């Protein structure tokens, strides 16, 4: 009982320390993002410059104001500029604003975007990201899970058949991964959409969208084929190679040889002495891939015109919409932080070599 309590305390202390460390890291990374996304406040200058130019141009181009004295034009434009500056919150000094951003980010309030709106018309960062997240998860999480499973099973199979023709083939295919997924995507579009005309060029669903939910879902699936395929071609070969090597390394450990020498059945050796120690890095890999998939993929989304978080981030960066950038990073930082803490706990459970306080 005493031992158990001390273990609980140890685990609690360990998790607490890890959580605090991760929390500090999250605060620092989010604040750094705020500073970088705003270029230390210079972005205000950029936004105001563009604002002035565009508002003056819009007033000048408005036939209603033709012939108005310049003072009147100036008054109208300046009032609009002032309102716009207030609307964007740029009337407040950047340093004060940076802490507001930090507070919003850390409390996951996220606030409102400066310029971007969700297609449903909301400028709450949560709504904007929330609108894009499902499509990103649908495509990239699916892609990453499929790729991960393929890598895992093919890698394991090849490690068992080290030196076989299949193994050699897999090794020779590994350089395919020197190109990113979007690169193959372009070729896939040319072949399957432009040349053969059997799959769509991109987008989420057919135009016009089918009325029946089932047909809608099938249409979405059809639109997922090419991006999935392009990512499979780009990322499976190197993943398979990595996993295969990984399994091979672990299968050559001394304790595996010892187990084999002891006459432990091969299946048991594989399950207990190879797969179990491999689990922590594999799980880590899987979790990180899963989280990163929620951030989308900027270029792939562009190539396939997929309305996801990646495109949103690209748009936000291009027009300096700091709250959106900060919001996405904050969510990502939290997910990553939580994952790190949880993974640490999982390691302790699944890896026999790791013990708290030992």
């Amino acid at each position, binding site marked *: 009982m005493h031992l158990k309590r001390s273990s609980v305390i140890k685990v609690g202390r360990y998790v607490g320390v890890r959580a605090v460390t991760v929390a500090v890291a999250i605060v620092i990374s989010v604040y750094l993002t705020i500073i970088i996304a705003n270029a230390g406040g210079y972005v205000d200058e950029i936004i105001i410059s563009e604002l002035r130019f565009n508002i003056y141009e819009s007033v000048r*181009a408005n036939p209603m104001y033709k012939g108005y004295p*310049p003072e009147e034009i*100036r008054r109208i434009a300046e009032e609009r500029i002032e309102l716009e500056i207030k609307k964007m919150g740029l009337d407040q000094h950047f340093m004060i604003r940076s802490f507001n951003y930090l507070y919003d980010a850390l409390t996951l309030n996220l606030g409102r975007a400066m310029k971007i709106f969700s297609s*449903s*018309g909301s400028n709450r960062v949560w709504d904007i990201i929330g609108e894009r997240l499902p499509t990103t998860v649908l495509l990239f999480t699916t892609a990453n899970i499929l790729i991960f499973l393929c890598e895992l099973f093919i890698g394991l199979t090849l490690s068992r058949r080290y030196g076989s023709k299949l193994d050699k083939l897999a090794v020779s295919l590994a350089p395919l991964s020197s190109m990113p997924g979007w690169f193959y995507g372009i070729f896939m579009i040319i072949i399957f959409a432009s040349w053969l005309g059997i799959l769509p*060029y*991109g987008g989420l669903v057919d135009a*016009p*969208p089918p009325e029946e939910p089932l047909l809608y879902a099938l249409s979405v699936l059809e639109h997922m084929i090419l991006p999935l395929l392009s990512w499979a071609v780009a990322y499976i070969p190197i993943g398979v190679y990595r996993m295969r090597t990984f399994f091979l390394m672990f299968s050559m450990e001394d304790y595996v040889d010892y187990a084999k020498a002891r006459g432990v059945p091969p299946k048991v050796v594989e399950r207990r002495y190879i797969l179990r120690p491999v689990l922590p890095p594999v799980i880590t890999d899987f979790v990180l891939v899963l989280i990163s998939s929620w951030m989308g993929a900027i270029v792939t989304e562009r190539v396939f015109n997929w309305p996801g978080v990646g495109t949103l981030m690209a748009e936000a960066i291009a027009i300096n919409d700091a709250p959106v950038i900060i919001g996405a990073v904050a969510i990502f930082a939290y997910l990553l932080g939580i994952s790190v803490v949880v993974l640490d706990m999982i390691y302790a459970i699944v890896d026999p070599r790791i013990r708290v306080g030992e």
Partner: protein
Amino acid sequence: MNKIVTSLIISIMVLNLFCVMPISLKSQQPPKGPWVDEVVFFTESDPDKVVEMMLRNEAQIYFDDLSYPHILRTVKERGLSYTFSYGLYYELTFNPVGPLFPATGKLNPFSNAKIREAMNYIIDRAYIAGEILGGLAVPRYTALTPSFPDYARYADVAYEIESTYKYNFEKGKAIIFEEMQKMGAEFRNGKWYYKGEPVAIKFLIRIEDARKDIGDYVSGQLEKLGFTVEKRYGKSAELSPIWIRGNPANGEWHLYTGGWITTLVNRDEADNFGYFYTKIGRPEPLWQAYENDPEFYAIAQKLYYRNYKSAEERDELMAKALMMSMKESQRIWLVHLASLWVSRPEVSIAYDLAGGYSGSWLWPWTLRYKDKVGGQVKVLSPDLLVEPWNPIAGTNWIFDQSVIRATGETSLLPDPYTGLYWPHRVEKAEVYVKEDLPVRKTLDWVSLIKVGDIVVPGDAWYKWDASQKKIVTVKEALGENVKALAKVIVYYDKELFSGKYKWHDGSTFSIADIIFNFIISHDRADPASPIYDKAYVPDYQAAMETFKGFKIVSKNPLVIEYYTDTWYADAEWIAAVGADDFWPYYLQGPAPWHTLAIGYLAEADRKLAFTADKAKELRVDWMNFIAGPSLEILKSKLQEAISRGFIPYSEVLRDYLSANEPLTRYQNLMNWYNSKGHFWVGNGPFYLEKVDTIAKQIVLRAYRGHVDSADKWLKFGEPMIPELSIQPIGTVIQTQPVVRNLTISTHGIPYRADDLLYVKYLLVHPGGKLTGFAEAVKDGLYQVRLGPDVTGALEEGTAELIIIAVSKLVGTPSITRTTFTVKSLIGYVGEQIAGVKGDLSGLGTRLSSVESKVDALSSQIRGVQNQVSSLSGVVYAAVGISVVSLIVAVAAVFMTRKSKT
């Protein structure tokens, strides 16, 4: 049996014929509403993919320009349709501070007006247009847009400028060298130095478009002149703080590759001189650094404020401003881009000369398949659903607005090719303006009357008082004897309130829709109102500067009077201000009063706000009539309106509503929402069928309950650009009259003379230029008559006749040219005499040649005679022999007879 079968077959065939004929005829009848049944908007921003998708017929039109030379080639080669709009233009902006920058003490060559002017010679605009932009641009020299009406008006001045300032590197170099030396610079080893340091030009180059290549080209030209060029590449965001907000005196830059855009056909570009060349333009430090020749400044000011009394005075000012602006050259114009718009060949659509397909207000009426009525058209757009849709102050993005325009209609529609307004729900208008205003009219639906004073009636409506909930009259607000610069009497369509004209939800259009617009337009700016919005106040105040009064003269048919100090050079534009100001098409879309009433309730309850600014202030959502969290709030407000029988501004509006109108309308709206899932109700040729916010798609369906047929605006399907053909001239003799026929047609049909504004000619000869007008003979035929006074004024040498035709139906002038030789009468007569002399000497030569030919002939005859003589001997001998032979033969016969007996 056979007969029966034959009769049966014939009967079936005849029957089939009868069955088929009505269907095929019917299918060609223009339907009510638009030509096509459905338009689907979806997104794609990759230009190459867009073209591929159109080639595979996965989309029929792209609602953005695709201005890339390789795409133009593909489109031409693979048979897609295309057209051009002209809204974007590039220039070089100079930093005029100097000669030395106060902050750095370094020399700024572009502080010297002569160097700036000389830069016009240094830049080869034709190279930029042809090579860098692959033909998707035309050279531009002046502040006037080459495809807009003002350019056509002053085409002769523009031509002179274009001839004077055409590319001439050596000439420009000579001027720049002379001026640089005057400024104290030294030219050593191919480089300019000032006080021992190289003269460096800091060049801000935009990289998002062709301006990067243009910047590189200009840098090359400057380096050829001996300047050291320091290029700084960047996007708008990176460079605008330097050139727009920065102080030019700091010397952070010398040159910037500027770009400007206009999205509508601007019929009056007179203010461009004040805007682009003087301090009047903008308050930023760069503009405030402009120093002008006092005469030019005065002219630019007059044109900016429209301080001229007649069209002739304006013409004179414009001509001077054009020439003087070249001398000042605070910026030099480079090219006017031809933006490429692409569609499938089987589809037809009206495009706007400045805004292309998406900028055209007439696209919903003109979009059709060339060979059929109905069908679905898929339109690609770079983006959609960018911001919330609400008619008062929703999305202003062109991608959304081009869709919104199809769902509503204004009482007048702008001509996409001229920018002039045509009546849609209006029968006619009378425009009264003060006699000293240089206003003209072009189209027949408007009457223009010039008068002395225009007094606003005291009982005309001026504004809404939110605290007293009443309409304030002009007399109450401004007192007696209020005057206006213009008055418009608008006679709306007689059928407007007949019950046939309906909103998409089935509600009948009524005068309340117009009155509501008047009230809410004022109410939102009144602090006592529950929907007061301070973000709206600056625009409202600006509008009230010129608004003088509104009066309903007749309720049915609707006739209104509108008083204003706003005036334009075109009476049609003044009429449009009056007709559309309170027409229920708001700033960002159409709306009947009952949909805005629920928006009113939502904003008054601080749940939503019409403007983004107020939404931010209240920390609520920006009102969205088509999707998102707004819908539930609007639905609850609709339920509240139904339960309360809510009538907005009931103190006034109830007098304009029938007993059951509010409830009927709210019920219609509820049915509409339950059926379509949104609150966007318009009255245009299409209604909003479906919005998919995740996939970014919008589906519009044809509104077949519309009062107009699809062919109403058919004549705007293709621009009626005049095609000119002039008879060749050859030679013109001074003081001798010349008459040449000029045929003008469009699409192979003679151009109606009434549709042509004018046909001007420009004669450029070695001694200068002359202008005049061609005369109409009949439709499609004009004559250029150059009288003795005109030909007498021409100097000898090669000359050119340039014909410029300006149509009322398109803003772009059509130009044709022919070259000829001018000769003096004396010279010509001398030439003729010399010619006769030459002919005479030629005749002598010909005579001697004939003589010699005759001699030769006689000797030939003699030869023949000799031959004949020699031949006669032979003949005689032969005859002799023959006679002897005959005698011998006869004798032999007789001898033979005697021996037998």
